[in-house]
């Protein structure tokens, strides 16, 4: 599968407060193909999180087009889609992984993972199977009935990954997924992500770690809101 999944065309994101205008993203054009594992790198405040938020449709670009290709090959401009349809889009096509895990404290691991299926249509019967499958993939099935605070950071992040993949999304967005983890747990998470990528998942990951970025198939560098280079890596 080498067809284009994402086509960003001249994406700009401005933030306006009372009298200051900040350009977080400036004229970014980027295409990402299905099955790629893209690492986004750059110093703090360069706009890489904003880019990830725009990709994740939880932030809307000020100008530019964000074309996203569905299974049927048709592209939709997400920059112009209604909030309601964006929510549907996220439910159908996206999976999020955060630096601080962002598991819901009051829900068990199982229920947290279930959230990844909650806002999608149908498939009630196979839900349990999907959740158990996702838990097996990241190796936290034995923690299903625990609450997030009872788990170590690495376990929590694995649970978060399970939640991101349980709905078999077209795109996994990971915002510094190893940022809060020690080396060993970080390596584990990277192994899981690589495994998912091998299985066909498209992944976009923001990271500060060059060694983790090196494990992606392609690296995108951002500086002051602009694309610096796009390097395809050969593993």
């Amino acid at each position, binding site marked *: 599968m080498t067809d284009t999944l994402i086509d960003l065309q001249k994406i700009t994101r401005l933030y306006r407060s009372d009298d200051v205008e900040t350009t977080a993203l400036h004229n970014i054009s980027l295409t990402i193909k299905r099955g790629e594992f893209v690492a986004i790198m750059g110093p703090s405040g360069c706009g890489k999180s904003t880019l990830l*938020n725009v990709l994740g449709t939880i932030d809307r670009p000020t100008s530019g087009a964000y074309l996203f290709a569905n299974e049927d090959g048709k592209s939709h401009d997400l920059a112009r889609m209604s909030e309601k349809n964006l929510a549907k*889009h996220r439910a159908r096509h996206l999976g999020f992984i955060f630096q601080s895990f962002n598991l819901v404290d009051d829900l068990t691991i199982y229920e947290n993972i279930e959230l990844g299926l909650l806002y999608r249509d149908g498939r009630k019967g196979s839900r349990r199977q999907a959740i158990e499958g996702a838990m097996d993939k990241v190796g936290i099935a034995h923690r299903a009935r625990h609450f997030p605070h009872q788990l170590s950071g690495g376990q929590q992040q694995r649970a978060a990954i399970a939640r991101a993949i349980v709905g078999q999304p077209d795109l996994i967005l990971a915002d510094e997924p190893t940022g809060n983890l020690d080396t060993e747990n970080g390596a584990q998470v990277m192994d899981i992500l690589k495994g998912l990528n091998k299985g066909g998942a498209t992944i976009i990951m923001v990271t500060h770690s060059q060694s983790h970025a090196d494990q992606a198939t392609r690296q995108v560098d951002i500086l002051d809101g602009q694309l610096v280079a796009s390097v395809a890596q050969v593993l």
Partner: protein
Amino acid sequence: MLRSTFTAFYRSFTRHPLYALLNLLGLSFGIAVFITLGLFFRFETTYEQWLPKASKIYIVENAWKFAAVRTDPEPWTNGGLLDNIKSDNPQRIGTRLWDHNVTVHMGANSTQEEVLLVDNEFFKVFDLPLLAGSKSAALAAPDNVVMSQPMAEKYFPGEAASALIGKTIRLTDEEGTHDYRISAVLKALPDTTAYKFDFVRLLNRSLIDRTTSWERYGSQRLQTILVFDTPKDAADMNAHFPAFIDRHAANQFGDDKPSHVLKTMVVPLTSLHLEDEKTRTAVYVLGIVGILAFLIAAINYINLATARAGMRAKEVAVRKTLGATQGSLRAQFLCEALLTTIMAALIGLSIVELSLPHINSFGDLKLKLDYAGEAVPLVLAGAFILLVGLLAGLYPAFVLSGFKPAQVLASSRTPAGGRMALRLREALVVLQFAIVIAFFIMGAGFLSQLNHMKTADIGFKREGLMISDSTYDPALTNAQREAIWAAFRNLPGVIAVAGANSAPGDNSLTNNTDVSREGHVGRRPSSSFTIVGTDYFKTYGGTVIAGRMLDPTRGEDIYIRWVNGEQQDPPRGETANVMINRTASETLGFKSPQEAVGEVLDFDDYKVRVAGVIEDMRFRSPKEKVAPMLYLMDRTPYRHSITGVRYAGVPEPVMRQRMETAWKAIAPQVPFKAVSGVENIDKYYKPDRNRSNVFSIGAGIAALIGCIGLYGMAAFNTSRRAREIGLRKVLGASSGKVVGLLVGQFLRPVLLANLIAWPLAWYALTQWLSQFDDAVALDPLIFVAATLVAMTIALLTVGGLALASASTEPGKALRHE
């Protein structure tokens, strides 16, 4: 989806028990107060509405319209009114209700009950359900008697109602002792009625013929009930009444046109219970307290839910990244509000069930939750509760679902809904505390008035006084009456005994007539007069403020004479001495009580001279003005004689026992009943005390809910500011400073609340106090004290939290996020 909502809801209880408890308890108590006061309101506003065809039943009322004396309409008429109405319109259905004491003889025992003498159309007016007997035959014969279910159970325990039909029961009343045939047994009546219908029998012509002033318009002998098919028919009758009175009462009021001094009207029987505007207001105020208590609880919910919104921001953001729409999140939070409300309603209902017996005894009420009988109002109340719960959930739902995930996930700060939400929450706390403080002030105001009424000088001493109207019993002979008075006088501990037409309590006979100063024309004030025995003032304790007391040894001081067993006024040309009270002296236009002494008054067609003036004695309700009163002395007041006994140094039960023993030795066949002065006058004070008690419960719980809310708000704000507190301490703030900061944040709304509470409470209290003839002045201290109490509660509520938070090590607080 729904299951997920339930899970989130369930977890909010197990994972945040404090929050959940505060929220749920506040709402439950609010709903409990709402339901209880709703029951009270419904109870008070549905009197007689249970009667079949209640809307067609009307009662005749009379009000005096004299220049100096105007009275509120009262539901009593002369006896002949119904006959006059029927002679004008034979089709008009109606009945008289004439209440009499009746002695029930069962073997050797005789007990006193009440019998209602009625007309043969009684059951056409009051279509009461029967346990046994038939309505058409029940009042067919003059020796038939209809009994209530409680009476049947009291006098024929264990017997089926149908078995009683045809049995005889011996009764003594106005018409002597007769055996009556039980013709029907009424089904027990609900509590929402002023009537008992214990014994009902036909009013006989012979009794009417023996009764004086039967045709005298304006006399208050009995109740006249009429049936009108439409309100318009009743209105037509009211429009027709002035002409009717002028025709039937012609020449009864001297030179005055009858319709000019007497206003007669019909009002729906269902409106009678709350006819007095002040009582109605009091009932409505209590209804409003119920709604306000619920409102406070709803505000709590809004506040706590929005305060917790910050803590749930991350959850909202995550759900949104997972594809939740704003709509689905709103639905989720509304669903949580609804579930909370349903739970709170169930808990509230249990609280009501558990506490109703206590509230009933505390407020002397008969409230009950009647799920089957009151299904419709209960369902409506339930719907209202759910609606308010949903509305309370609306705001938090919109705030929460509006969080932008990118912002929430980017910052470690938890959003609080912005400046607007903060302002709104503060405004809600202000509103809540304003209501709480107003409740405190009103409660204190009620208490001070009640206390005043309890201790106020009402012109006579309530303690050490026994009152018995058993000497009024027609079964007694005059010789027996005199023997009883003599026996009472000889009892150890007794100071004075007097028979009289009037005594503290409502069983007095007072007559109104025209009294004016001799030679004065123009203004014709009316006055009440009453016939009193020789030791009357000694017994009740009236204080002479001018002139002298009447002296039974002086012939000219005795007004009533008895000639051959007949009561007579003094011969023409003779001027007997009388006492008047202070109000009479004022009404008659004397500048001072001293000026009245020795003056001659025109009293009907007679002349009397004022021997002395006594201080007003408040024998009836503190809401009623004391009537101008003339006291006429009678050495042997046989007629309508109520006996008062002044005693000292003996406990009340002992005194009552001694009197009863003395009575039984003289008149064993006549039942004896005596009440204490305190007890007999207390019925006027009781309704206000009861309502005030109900108010205290409602207001107290509302205040508690307010405090729960304040505590919850404080807890969340303090935890939200944990980092700020840590920072301040790193920068060198002392614990004291931090506590001051946190407490100050909450005292400001509480202080602001006073601005709303004071005028509100002032207005409500002035309205309430205006119903009393003898009202206390509003003490500004009440306002200050209520504010201090509210402040103290707020301080204690918030202070502890602030102290705990302020003494946390800054490092821990900074690690908080």
